[in-house]
């Protein structure tokens, strides 16, 4: 199998809900974070609102479903609706859900119940929704997807791991299509960790191409993709030609053939410089993380931007124009686009390069 097609998109993030919301943010070039309370102060957050899920499910069905699973359900419903393939056999549809941290809120809700009420009064509802694959279970139940169902967790590289699993399932013809989703949510403990490990920016705007400063703002959300094997019918949003993963301890990412590149940097000091080290000066690059924030889900939003760009044949200007701090080739004007790549470095030396091209080529 030489490529997989992207034929449906479902999105919810700090930019809003749906691909029109993301397109609007890409055209505007910025999204304002909200201020959320954390103990005695506030921190900025690119927050995702799952309320539009009520367009797909009634309130009764949503009872006892937590924010993490709601985000996942909203992404999944949108992606299938967008793909508009009513004849898709749900027993031949695989579900791959990837998350950096899983359902954090219910994890701590469960601990709240233990701490407040004692071991014997722990909440079964919070526990069952805190298990990492609960969101995938909710999706399978609500959408009656009975094909293989896989949840994985690989921090920064969760998208790449999910793509690799989807690719294998399609290549071996275990399934006809894969609904791949990446989901992560904010919770106060995450905000606290963010404060302890990173410097919360005073400014309300991320400049991720400035590798010398910490400007990352926490994000959350869900991005879903309906993926299928190549057919004579052009892909709706482009095709993924390869997913290359590796570790800097043993190999280097091959970036020369992938032009332009969407960089997965997020204004974090711990891995920002790695982009500067491995991306050549002449390489045209763009970075859109200011539109959705720093989160394990942001590589999936990068992939969604790539998919939308390939569909339109136009790449949007980088949301960080590079100012006077990035000396490479930042894309500052809308430009034609028939192929591109997404690059993500993790904290352990792990990297992933996804190479895409237009679906009609």
């Amino acid at each position, binding site marked *: 199998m030489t490529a997989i097609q992207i034929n449906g998109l479902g999105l919810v993030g700090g930019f809003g809900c749906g691909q029109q919301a993301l397109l609007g943010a890409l055209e505007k070039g910025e999204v304002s974070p909200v201020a959320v309370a954390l103990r005695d102060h506030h921190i900025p957050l690119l927050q995702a609102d799952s309320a539009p899920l009520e367009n797909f499910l009634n309130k009764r069905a949503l009872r006892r479903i937590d924010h993490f699973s709601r985000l996942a359900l909203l992404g999944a419903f949108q992606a299938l609706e967008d793909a508009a393939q009513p004849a898709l056999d749900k027993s031949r549809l695989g579900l791959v859900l990837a998350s950096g941290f899983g359902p954090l809120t219910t994890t701590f809700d469960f601990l709240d119940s233990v701490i407040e009420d004692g071991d014997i009064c*722990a909440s079964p509802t919070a526990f069952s929704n805190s298990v990492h694959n609960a969101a995938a279970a909710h999706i399978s139940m609500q959408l009656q997807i009975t094909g293989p169902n896989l949840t994985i967790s690989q921090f920064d590289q969760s998208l790449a791991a999910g793509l690799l699993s989807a690719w294998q399932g399609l290549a071996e013809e275990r399934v006809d299509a894969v609904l791949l989703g990446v989901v992560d949510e904010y919770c106060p403990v995450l905000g606290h960790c963010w404060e302890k490990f990173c410097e919360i920016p005073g400014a309300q705007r991320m400049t991720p191409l400035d590798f010398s400063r910490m400007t990352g703002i926490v994000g959350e959300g869900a991005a879903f993709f309906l993926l299928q094997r190549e057919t004579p019918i052009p892909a709706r949003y482009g095709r993924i030609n390869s997913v290359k993963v590796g570790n800097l301890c043993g190999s280097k990412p091959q970036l020369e053939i992938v032009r332009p590149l969407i960089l997965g940097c997020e204004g974090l000091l711990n891995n920002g410089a790695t982009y500067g080290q491995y991306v050549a000066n002449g390489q045209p690059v763009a970075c859109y993380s200011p539109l959705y924030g720093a989160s394990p889900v942001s590589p999936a939003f990068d992939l969604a931007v790539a998919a939308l760009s390939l569909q339109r044949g136009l790449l949007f200007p980088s949301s960080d124009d590079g100012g006077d701090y990035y000396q490479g080739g930042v894309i500052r004007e809308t430009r034609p686009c028939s192929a591109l790549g997404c690059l993500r470095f993790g904290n352990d030396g792990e990297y992933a390069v996804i190479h895409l091209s237009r679906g009609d080529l």
Partner: protein
Amino acid sequence: MNQAVAISGVGCLCAAGMTLASASASMLRRERNPGPPRAFLTSHPSPYPVFEVLAALPRQGNNPELLRTTRLALSALAEALVDAGLDDADLFGLKVGVCIGTTVGSAMNNEDFYRDFRSGADPSMAPIERYLRSNPASAVARHYRLDGPCQVVVNACASGTDAIGLGASWVRSGVCDIALVGGADELCRTTYNGFASLMIADSKPCKPFDQQRRGLNLGEGAGMLVLESAASLRSRGKSPRGYLLGYGSGTDAYHLTAPHPEGRGLRQALAETLRTANVKAQQVSFINVHGTGTPDNDRVESLVLGQLFPRTPLVATKCYTGHTLGAAGAIEAVLTLASLEQQQLPGNVGLTHADPELSVYPSAEPVGVRGTLAISESLAFGGNNSALLIGLEVPR
């Protein structure tokens, strides 16, 4: 398409034994030793027994900077690599992937940290740093400086089985030369309280398939396998210990915590497993069932297996290991291979009065088996079901 992938080494560590050989031997002797948890305190009036690994972990499992789950994985992997005849130097230069299933190993649920946080204190970040360092697949890759694909499967109690199935596809497709696959999980107060809250933990030693079964006992441990391409094995002049011949999975899409009453997803998983291996049900020597000892699980498994495999011997090993969650599928896969090699199954030590409503169930006493093929299956929270077909040889 020939789906067979060679298994060149295996390792296992659980309450039944610190190595595969010792665990297999103790199970055949019908030894088990569940007891109240020692790793943490509990205020349940009558503590639920657990199957805890009480012995010190071997050298690879001593790094205090890592979660115990990850140390269990590294310990079992060390045994598997020795069994495969591989050392660190052999792995260098090869494309080696890591795929490990877990539940606790991926959860940011440190209770002490959280108690301090919610009280307004400024807790040490050490538990969070340890969690961030302890993604089991990444930690293994870091330990051996590996450059291949790396991922953790968090499919609840089917995680280990799915991790093995996925890793096999990497080897089959050439994504990597070797895949280090399996599952690991530690005993944890959070999951202990969680299963108690669901009222599916037995306050006595578990009794899978017994009329008086009341639920599961948690356990801890790890099972790891070295899956290797034929070319890599040839270049080393090594013979495989066995083969992973088939893998399948299916989803109930029914309920968050209860299995589908007719076992819809399990049937799908078993059908795919046999189909991918091009094997008929009659060729299967035995099935290592999920067998948690919960009323629902055992009833659904017995229903499905009674219809699809009415005369195939069953074995339920959780009565010796406890339910090791994300590790269970991997530990049971390794034990399945060992039972094939020994042509003998341990008895179901908790079974004294078989449930008359169940059409099939494991033998209470050890039994001999014949043949070279066996299935290991997992049923998970969320309606995930998966199965592996393991063989001593590739059937013609």
